[in-house]
């Protein structure tokens, strides 16, 4: 895509940050860097100036594959009519206090 037309530009990386131990890494944003090590160091400076993270993942943006938003309707539709997958679908007698 646009990147390839621009040979001198450092590649684009997506940054994921774990905000504290036990939580998932979450997408924080993106940045340019020559390699993975520089991407991690830049991510520290750009996205964790206020202790926002304890762990950083970076991946070159060109390796991210995403679902097509135009297919969202059909893609997620089958889940729509399966309300029995939610606990609220089931009626319990009032006598059951905890479940």
């Amino acid at each position, binding site marked *: *895509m*646009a*990147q390839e*037309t*621009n040979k*001198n*530009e*450092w590649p*684009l990386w997506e940054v994921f940050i774990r905000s504290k131990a036990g939580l998932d890494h979450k997408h924080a*944003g*993106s*940045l*340019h860097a*020559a*390699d993975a090590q*520089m991407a991690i160091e830049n991510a520290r*400076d*750009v996205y964790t*100036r*206020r202790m926002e993270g304890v762990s950083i993942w970076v991946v070159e943006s060109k390796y991210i594959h*995403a679902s*097509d*938003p*135009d297919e969202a309707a059909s893609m997620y539709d089958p889940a729509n009519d399966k309300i029995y997958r939610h606990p609220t679908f089931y009626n319990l007698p009032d006598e059951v206090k905890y479940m």
Partner: protein
Amino acid sequence: MTVHSFQEHFDDLIDREVTIEPKDWMPEDYRKTLIRQISQHAHSEIVGMLPEGNWITRAPSLRRKAVLLAKVQDEAGHGLYLYSAAETLGVTRDELYDQLHSGKAKYSSIFNYPTLTWADMGAIGWLVDGAAIMNQVPLCRTSYGPYARAMVRVCKEESFHQRQGFEIMLTLSKGAEVQKKLAQDAFNRWWWPSLMMFGPPDAESPHTEQSVRWRIKRMTNDELRQKFVDVTVEQAKVLGLDVPDKDLKWNEARGHYDFGAINWEEFRNVVKGNGPCNKQRLETRKKAWENGKWVRDAAMAHAEKRKARKMTDVKAA
């Protein structure tokens, strides 16, 4: 889907306050307007480091120096968040830099004014960042996802910028007579340019209506300017400084302050490139970019060499 139904779907998302994401279909004008607005904002953050950078080595104490350094570093970060958001719309970083360096892209005209005294660091934080926050808070709910998310991050970090500026002004205005004079002088010079930061009056802002419709803008220039005047006048009272506007008066009926006429001639002149520092700011940016070229090239060459070495190691193993 036909273009027409794509458009209908897009309008429907906008009306329902659903966020637009990079891969969603969007009208070409929406994309262009966003690239222009986001990159102008990014350029403003980057050029905005220069007037303050001027005072880092001359800050009056280590505390002030550390604070100013942190603020300027934040501005670099804000520029980067925003450039990344613009890039999701299909423009490259180099194209954006090129637009700035060639003078094709604009940045906030306020940064073309000089920072003559230490009190200017106070006035910039208090007024310029104050005005910027006023502008930016509504943009946290803007329709384009990457932009809105970048703005949430920016706004979270920006509030310390305004407070540190106000603190500088407060210290000066409670200090010796000469310090109070410095504060008042900085206030006098930065007040009007700060009001101009909200852009031309609504009547002369042809894109406002469309931008509000698209939720790229959530309040008009005049609405934001009035809001800024109302809160800042009260803050000036706490500082014991005089707002440099003889027409400023509380209007009971409107529930707002009335204020004097803004010199739009000056505004247009600075935007056109004839402000006191336009040339200097742009030259500093260009020089930084050109002088950094060998570093960028070397880093790329080093990364490629390491990658190649890794490949041979793998083959050898």
